[in-house]
């Protein structure tokens, strides 16, 4: 019981000592995002066969990480929120895996 009370107090952060992302850091993240956009368009013109979707999703995930960590401040946010974001992503991936493990191995009737 004591532990619960201790963590509650630690998580209570007043508004004025939060991390402020500088104008410069935000702009650098934006430049990274633009570079990744150019990469995803360029790569689409290569014939990568089965890897096309995988590469597109990989670049999109990298962009999502940048937006989430920096623009959405998850990097400097209370950890509990990051844990929940991770759990939601996990639920989505599990649903995809369960669905395709059924769909791919289904026999034609």
């Amino acid at each position, binding site marked *: 019981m004591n532990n619960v009370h201790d963590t509650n107090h630690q998580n209570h952060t007043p*508004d004025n000592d939060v991390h402020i992302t500088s104008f410069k850091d935000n702009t650098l993240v*934006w430049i990274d995002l633009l570079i990744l*956009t150019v990469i995803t368009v360029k790569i*689409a013109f290569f014939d990568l066969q089965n890897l096309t979707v995988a590469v597109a999703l990989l670049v*999109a995930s990298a*962009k999502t990480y940048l*937006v989430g960590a920096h623009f959405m401040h998850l990097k400097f946010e*209370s950890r509990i929120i990051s844990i929940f974001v991770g759990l939601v992503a996990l639920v989505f991936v599990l649903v*995809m895996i369960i669905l*395709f493990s059924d769909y791919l191995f289904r026999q034609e009737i």
Partner: protein
Amino acid sequence: MSNAVTENHHNHYDPTGIRFGMWLFLFTEILLFGTLFIVYAVYRFANSEPFHDASATLSILHGTVNTVVLLTSSLTVALSITALQKGQVKRSINLLLITILLAGVFLVIKFFEYKAKYHYGLFPGMEGYIELPTGQKQFFNLYFFMTGLHAIHVIIGMILLGIIAWYIRKGTINPTRYVYLENSGLYWHIVDVVWIFLFPLFYLII
């Protein structure tokens, strides 16, 4: 127990809690679009050739420009939060207005894309659409539904950011209490993230 509850009675302001509430809402948004992406995955797996052919009718240039526009609008929202945190109220409002302007540019480009599709009768139910093979019909169903739902989110985002800009001007949202600006920013970034996935999955099947 009752002491623990009333201990904080005089100060109800809890920005982390308010942001967490916003995140809970965003999770429902992620699962809403996530479900549609799952439908997309199954349809595309079953119809890779028709999806390829139908995707060729979309303009990569328009899609790329719109991606850059939305990424830039995400930056201006992030900068607006930084500006307000640093006490630069006027700059914060101006950055929000630029964001709304960029959202407008996105919608105008989207409008012309839809208009071209309408011209060829490719909206579900029109003559051009009815003649398409089943796989291409599925592509256009998903294209209009997902980009349409996304566009509705863009419109809601514009209204939301406009209201926030008004409250900053009035001083209700200010350099010491700006969590509602942060929450609107979170919403805007999620709209951007959805587009980050929509763009390669619809425009870049080459």
